[in-house]
């Protein structure tokens, strides 16, 4: 535009900078009001000023609500101009100001007029602007117009209507669901451009919870050849998602064929999407993975960096699942290590770390340091994960590798990178005894100069746990006490706790530890002082049980659940003592999630995973009738009570609480011509039903839960297994599958389900004891029961271990669930907590002799529990 150019020329003599880059917000808004309100409207001037407004918004300067509204109203005046440029810029301005200005809906009628007008160039942007400013109430009035626009013959208009509907569906899904007939029509039209892509996207967004509809969507469009590459990629994703959720669907073969067929598509984008989805579907076996890997291998030698990065990234993920399948690409990956793009080179290396053999480890690791200097944190984390999985794969190289990790710890890096490193070193500690000392001293060195409080406290905790078990525990004291002198309060407190651990586990160090703790008791921070004082008092009492329960023992309670229980307690009159036994136990899985149980497949966003684990809600809190049974002590996994693909599918989750079992039945009705009402499950057997929560109405294709609560007898009368026969009871109302019209009359019906068993495992929650032997001693022999069994059906020790482990549902400690090969005897150590908070420990000594002979010793805080467990095994 001439206006800008003139400005620029003036400026160029001086600063050499363009006027649009140095706009003053208030003068632009001033100018806007003056120009837009003037008569006649000068189009050139107006579009110039509109661009200035857009630039002010673009520079991110905050505009006040009042200013914005005033300017917005001035802009609306411009609808009287029919200038192409002005109108188009007005649309953009309306959208950009929609969120910062008041009363934007006043332009509704102007936009509606443009949307239905003759100017094609105006209709599409008008639709998009209109949907941005419309609220839920106004939506009704434009419904008809939106439906028309979706099937408009101009692709631009149809696309605008479809994408806008996707935006609207985010806030008003139920309205958009009424527009799907038109969307279906648009999806199957042979319209040019991206109409099909947008239509499929909208259909999926609206129907993604309806598995049947999703399946139909894929199979219908998979057959149509005339698709844009983007539509094709979207379909692959939809198919992959459906397969991932449930690969037993009837047309899974068809979907798989579709994805595999896309490997031969003409567009690289589609080929890559297909390959990546095949890799992502973890279930794929090496044979299915091979075609995907071979197209990715071809991409590795592409001249385009984007393609190379995409390929190596996906190969790297594939290597985490199936290193063997990817090792065919090792040569290509070696070449990529010298790639100009650092991201490509690093990913190639971390992939090689996963696929390479033991012999190449040292050579690769030497190259790591040359990479680390100039790559981003995400990739560094990737490399660290690869090194960590190497440590697990090749324990003999663990000390070399942990030296490399320690070297990396000394370099600069963000908290996420450092924390991945610390995690890796901690994992080495657990896995390998030879490398333990080296890894511990690396960690000690690290906290000497660590700026991240969270990491320092974590390392101190690990030192407190692992340090006392080493040959020379005294060596660690200096490192830990240094923290007390130098660090922030949180770190000092952690250091005090770590010191106490040494005091509890190493009696010879106790006098010196007490001296140090006394010094800590003079700290200026409350928490540090309190901890020190508490520990001193406990040590001075010389009461071994106090020491073990408050210092060396571990807390197994789920922290979120504890917080909730305490809050609930505070709401009561607090006249009774708080009972720790009502607090649910955290499962070892939950505890272990921070350290990442499977390093190879660890999610790239561990923070998210962690957040999910902690916000896991009590399932009973959501149902008001059941809240009184909360908290849940243990929930089983879902158990199918019907065959797949029957008329009604029902699965059951057992929630065991203090004195009841809440059976949650998730029901799905797959019959399109029936509407079920008052759905509930009758259970018959040794236990009494105390409460039923039924489903009022169950439509086809919807999953809902009904609940049946049974009361458990107290421990004395508890038998080891209860069997419950289940029947699904409901009223049927016939309905028309196409119109959804429901008949008035209904009739009762029932449907027999499979039996449910409540076994010993349902009463026991897993608990991980780091030091099983100490816990065993602590429980003492008073409630010990011992018995010997012959397990004639078992042929190997591993089989027996697996069987006992799953039968009792307890946590195997000290890695005793793995039987070393070639042994004829093995001891399995199990730990758990019985419903009601009774600790249970089981030692099962197994010997191989014509079947497996088992000597079982059970210790518990409650003799009845020991009794029950021994009985149940027999």
């Amino acid at each position, binding site marked *: *535009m001439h206006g*800008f*150019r003139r400005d*620029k020329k003036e400026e160029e003599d001086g600063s050499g900078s*363009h006027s*649009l*880059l140095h706009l003053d917000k208030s003068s632009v808004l001033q100018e806007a009001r003056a120009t837009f309100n003037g008569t*006649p*409207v*000068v189009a050139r001037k107006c*579009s110039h000023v509109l661009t200035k407004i*857009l*630039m002010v918004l*673009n*520079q*991110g300067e905050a505009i006040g609500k009042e200013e914005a509204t005033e300017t917005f109203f001035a802009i609306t005046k411009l609808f009287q*101009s*029919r*200038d192409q*440029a002005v109108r188009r*810029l007005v649309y*953009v301005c309306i*959208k950009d100001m929609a969120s910062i200005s008041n009363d934007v809906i006043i332009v509704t009628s102007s936009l509606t007029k443009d949307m239905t007008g003759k100017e094609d160039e105006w209709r599409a*942007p008008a639709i998009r602007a209109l949907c941005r400013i419309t609220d839920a109430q106004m939506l009704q009035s434009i419904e008809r117009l939106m439906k028309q626009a979706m099937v408009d013959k101009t692709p*631009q208009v149809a*696309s*605008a209507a479809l*994408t*806008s509907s*996707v935006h609207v569906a985010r806030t008003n899904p139920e309205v958009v669901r009424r527009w799907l007939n038109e969307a279906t029509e648009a999806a199957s039209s042979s319209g040019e451009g*991206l109409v099909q892509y947008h239509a499929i*996207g*909208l259909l*999926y*967004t609206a129907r*993604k919870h309806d598995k049947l509809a999703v399946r139909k969507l894929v199979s219908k469009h998979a057959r149509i050849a005339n698709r844009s590459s*983007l539509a094709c*990629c*979207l379909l692959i*994703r939809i198919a*992959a998602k459906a397969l991932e959720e449930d690969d037993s669907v009837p047309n899974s073969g068809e979907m798989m064929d579709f994805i595999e067929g896309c490997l031969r598509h003409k567009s690289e*984008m589609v080929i*890559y999407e297909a390959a990546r989805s095949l890799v*992502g*579907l973890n279930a794929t076996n090496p044979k299915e993975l091979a075609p995907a890997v071979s197209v990715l291998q071809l991409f590795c030698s592409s001249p*385009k*960096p*984007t*393609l190379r990065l*995409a390929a190596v*990234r*996906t190969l*790297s*993920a594939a290597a985490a699942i199936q290193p063997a399948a990817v090792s065919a690409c090792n040569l290509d990956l070696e070449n990529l290590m010298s790639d*100009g793009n*650092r*991201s490509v080179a690093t990913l190639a290396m971390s992939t090689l770390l996963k696929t390479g053999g033991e012999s190449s480890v040292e050579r690769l690791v030497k190259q790591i340091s040359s990479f680390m200097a100039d790559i*981003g944190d*995400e990739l560094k984390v990737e490399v660290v994960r690869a090194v960590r999985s190497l440590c697990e794969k090749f324990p003999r190289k663990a000390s070399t590798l942990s030296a490399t990790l320690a070297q990396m710890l000394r370099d600069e890096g963000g908290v996420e990178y450092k924390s991945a490193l610390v995690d890796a070193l901690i994992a080495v500690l657990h896995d390998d005894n030879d490398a333990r000392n080296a890894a511990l001293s690396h960690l000690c060195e690290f906290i000497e100069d660590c700026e991240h409080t969270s990491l320092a406290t974590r390392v101190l905790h690990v030192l407190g746990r692992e340090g006392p078990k080493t040959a020379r525990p005294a060596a660690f004291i200096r490192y830990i006490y240094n923290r007390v002198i130098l660090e922030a309060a949180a770190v000092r407190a952690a250091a005090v706790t770590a010191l106490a651990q040494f005091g509890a586990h190493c009696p010879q160090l106790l006098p010196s530890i007490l001296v140090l703790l006394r010094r800590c008791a003079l700290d200026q921070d409350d928490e540090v002082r309190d901890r020190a004082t508490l520990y001193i008092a406990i040590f001075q009492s010389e009461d071994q049980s106090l020491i073990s329960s408050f210092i060396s023992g571990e807390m197994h309670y789920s922290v979120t659940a504890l917080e909730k229980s305490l809050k609930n307690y505070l709401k009561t009159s607090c006249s009774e003592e708080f009972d720790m036994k009502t607090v649910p136990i955290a499962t070892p899985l939950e505890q272990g999630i921070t350290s990442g149980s499977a390093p190879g497949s660890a999610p790239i*966003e561990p923070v998210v995973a962690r957040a999910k684990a902690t916000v896991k809600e009590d399932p009973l809190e959501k149902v008001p009738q059941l809240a009184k049974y909360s908290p849940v002590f243990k929930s089983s996994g879902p158990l199918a009570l019907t065959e797949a693909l029957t008329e009604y599918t029902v699965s059951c989750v057992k929630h065991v609480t203090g004195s009841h079992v809440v059976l949650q039945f998730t029901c799905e009705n797959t019959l399109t011509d029936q509407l079920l009402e008052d759905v509930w499950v009758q259970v018959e057997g040794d236990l009494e039903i105390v409460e039923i929560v039924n489903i009022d109405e169950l439509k086809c294709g919807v999953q809902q839960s009904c609940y049946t609560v049974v009361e458990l007898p107290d421990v004395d009368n508890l038998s080891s297994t209860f069997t419950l026969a289940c029947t699904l009871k409901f009223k049927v109302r016939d309905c028309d599958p196409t119109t959804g019209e429901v008949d008035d009359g209904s009739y009762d019906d029932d449907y027999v389900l499979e039996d449910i068993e409540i076994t010993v495992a349902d009463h026991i929650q897993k608990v991980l004891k780091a030091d099983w032997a100490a816990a065993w001693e602590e429980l003492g022999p008073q409630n010990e029961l011992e018995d010997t069994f012959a397990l004639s059906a078992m042929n190997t020790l591993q089989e027996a271990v697996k069987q006992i482990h799953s039968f009792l549902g307890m946590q195997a400690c000290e890695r005793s669930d793995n039987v070393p090969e070639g042994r004829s005897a093995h001891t399995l150590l199990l730990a758990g907590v019985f419903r009601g908070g009774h600790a249970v420990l089981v030692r099962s000594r197994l010997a191989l002799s014509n079947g497996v002979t088992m000597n079982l010793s059970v210790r518990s805080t409650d003799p009845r529990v020991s009794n029950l467990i021994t009985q149940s095994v027999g």
Partner: protein
Amino acid sequence: MSLLREPTLYTIKAIIILDNDGNRMIAKYFDDIFPTTKEQRQWEKNLFNKTHRASSEITILDNLTIVYRGNVDLFFYVVGSSSENELILQSVLTTLYDSVNSLLKKNVEKSCLLDNMDSICLILDEICDQGIILENDYQTIASRCALKGDDISLGEQTVAQVRDYKTLSYYYFIAKTEELYEF
């Protein structure tokens, strides 16, 4: 890295054009990855530092995949999630660049870009709507977004046209009359 993405049309997290000092020419964020302008600017600085010297066309920063392209004194960026199909992002970048290239008649440089900022705003608006790819054909986009710099205002234009029309018909009338008179 999760390879299976939620099937959705929301593909693009941001489109950014920077100059050769890393200053923002125009930037559109379609996701609240960086809620404040300050964070956005800081991130753009980091991005620029990471990319302006390297000759490659793709990078990973803060769990985001960024494809980019530099020309003379401008840098074009398209940003997507780290699990997004890199080639789709690349195709969006190509559409963006080609549209701008066609609009500016191959003079893809800062001063030309600024002179045609109104059309550039429209191009961005036509390529991507709140994160959804709206159009991927650069010729269609360029033809839709080329605004002819009409120097005549609406008022003047109509008056002038009306006057022209009147004058013409006046002469026509005279000519006709003269013809008539001749007979």
